């Protein structure tokens, strides 16, 4: 079943239990429609909608493929340097684009680059997936857990980035180091002479397709960044900044509006709404309280223990299930623990533990994130099948290392 269908089914079930079940058994009156709507974080929904419109137009310019090709040129056939540049490029790109978009734009060209230099595509693509999950944690728009928790805390774009940057930069460098070590044999076997015909073919697929649109998108991107920055002065929510940027671009570029609206991925937005309602029902039913109490019993009054538990539990769960429903469900647990543990009351430690755990944990298996599944699908389309175990060989090492970095940082910081 599609994830959005499952989320909507859950939301509808919550309402039917309340209205129909509650008619016969009052104990089943858990959450009515109006209460459920209050659980939907519209700031999250509109931030994602705004970025989606903006990125749909930005990605049409061909800029990301061009950047990957520039990386190829810059490396001058050095497979190691190329691997390093692609990892860092993916990490930075996924800070501003969601992982699925970043990987859909970068992975096809990376597979072609790998084949041109005679390196197995796993050596570039799997590290790119790992870098995307880590890089996504660096900004409030990079990965859904960052968006959900960051907006819940009322953090601005730069406020969030300043807090996340040290952990993400160190983690990204660790991903790069581990990837180059894990793929040392493949990289060492790269071709010394490249086929001019293949390089030409590669370049043809990496042209800027719409220069005027690119110029406009860059200008509006800078204005949006300014709004994110100014938003912290004027209490402007990031969703308003993102929607302003998207609207400016729509007014300036004048795209075919019906087509533009068809390109917006409504399934994702309804997935979020469905999950918010479903988790609201679960929370009202007392399940979240029970889980929070179980974690509080394990941690006692120790913020350090609770932080470690939150990082690693979030990492483990996000490694096997989608981190969006997990984050929405774990957020009220972080709220309850932050209120019940005295040292946590004035700190955001448990929320950051949730962000890093949910974002970095997505690297554990290929089921851990939609971006992972997209990259695996693209590799299969090029004739390279990644097995569950094959992905986990790299994912486990990188997840453990990056969760360790996050844990150490949070214990020092808080």
């Amino acid at each position: 079943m599609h994830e959005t269908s499952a989320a909507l089914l859950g939301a509808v079930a919550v309402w039917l239990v309340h209205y129909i079940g509650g008619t016969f058994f009052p104990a089943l009156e858990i959450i009515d429609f109006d209460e459920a709507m209050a659980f939907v974080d519209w700031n999250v929904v509109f931030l994602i909608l705004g970025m989606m419109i903006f990125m749909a137009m930005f990605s049409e310019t061909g800029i990301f493929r061009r950047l990957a090709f520039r990386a190829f040129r810059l490396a001058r056939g050095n497979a190691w340097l190329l691997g390093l540049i692609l990892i860092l490029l993916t990490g930075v790109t996924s800070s501003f684009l969601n992982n699925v978009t970043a990987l859909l734009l970068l992975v096809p060209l990376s597979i072609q680059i790998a084949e041109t230099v005679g390196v197995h595509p796993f050596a570039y693509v799997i590290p790119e997936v790992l870098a995307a999950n880590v890089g996504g944690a660096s900004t409030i728009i990079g990965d859904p857990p960052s968006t959900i928790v960051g907006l819940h805390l009322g953090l601005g774009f730069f406020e969030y980035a300043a807090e996340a940057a040290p952990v993400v930069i160190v983690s990204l460098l660790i991903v790069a180091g581990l990837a180059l070590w894990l793929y040392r044999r493949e990289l060492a076997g790269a071709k010394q002479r490249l086929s001019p015909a293949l390089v030409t073919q590669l370049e043809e697929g990496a042209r800027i397709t719409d220069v005027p649109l690119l110029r406009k998108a860059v200008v509006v991107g800078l204005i949006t960044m300014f709004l994110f920055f100014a938003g912290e002065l004027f209490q402007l929510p990031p969703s308003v900044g993102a929607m302003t940027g998207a609207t400016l671009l729509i007014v300036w570029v004048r795209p075919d509006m019906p087509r533009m609206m068809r390109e917006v991925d409504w399934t994702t937005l309804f997935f979020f709404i469905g999950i918010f309602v479903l988790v609201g029902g679960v929370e009202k039913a007392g399940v979240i309280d029970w889980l929070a109490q179980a974690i509080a019993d394990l941690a006692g009054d120790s913020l350090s223990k609770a932080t470690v538990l939150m990082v690693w539990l979030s990492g483990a769960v996000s490694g096997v299930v989608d981190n969006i429903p997990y984050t929405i469900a774990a957020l009220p647990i972080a709220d309850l623990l932050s209120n019940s543990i005295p040292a946590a009351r004035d700190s955001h430690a448990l929320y950051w533990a949730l962000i890093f755990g949910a974002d970095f944990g997505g690297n554990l298996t290929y089921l851990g994130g939609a971006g992972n599944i997209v990259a695996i699908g693209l590799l299969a389309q090029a004739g390279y099948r990644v097995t569950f175990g094959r992905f986990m060989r790299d994912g486990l090492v990188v997840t453990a290392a990056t969760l360790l970095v996050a844990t150490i940082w949070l214990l020092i910081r808080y």
Partner: protein
Amino acid sequence: MGRILCATRGGEDSKRTQQAAIALAKERGDELVFLYVADASFLDNIAAPVVVDVQLELDQMGRFQLALAQEQAAEQGVAAQITIRHGHLHAEVIAAARELGISLVVLGRPQGPTAIFDETDQEGFAAEIEERTSAEVRIV
């Protein structure tokens, strides 16, 4: 002169299949067509914003894979044609075989745990092609 269709993606297994198709084209004096089927169905079950033109990305990747195959064929003196289709692999191979008047379809034999298809699937697919088109099928 007949026409050979070789459905290909990329990777080591595909290179073996391409080599076998090139050898058959030389031996029989047939025309050779490499086919890439861009199938975006791996996106069907994920709830994440897909704002990229996926078909365009897959087209470009397919064109590159076919250029690799064409280069291999050219090295052996065979001028191969290429074609890209969108949709499900099985349906598109059958449709291409019919439209292009194909006399022989060359499919790769699945090798090892990382193969995209298993052997039983491939044999069933070969039987389906022979039943629904006038082409012969060889699994190489």
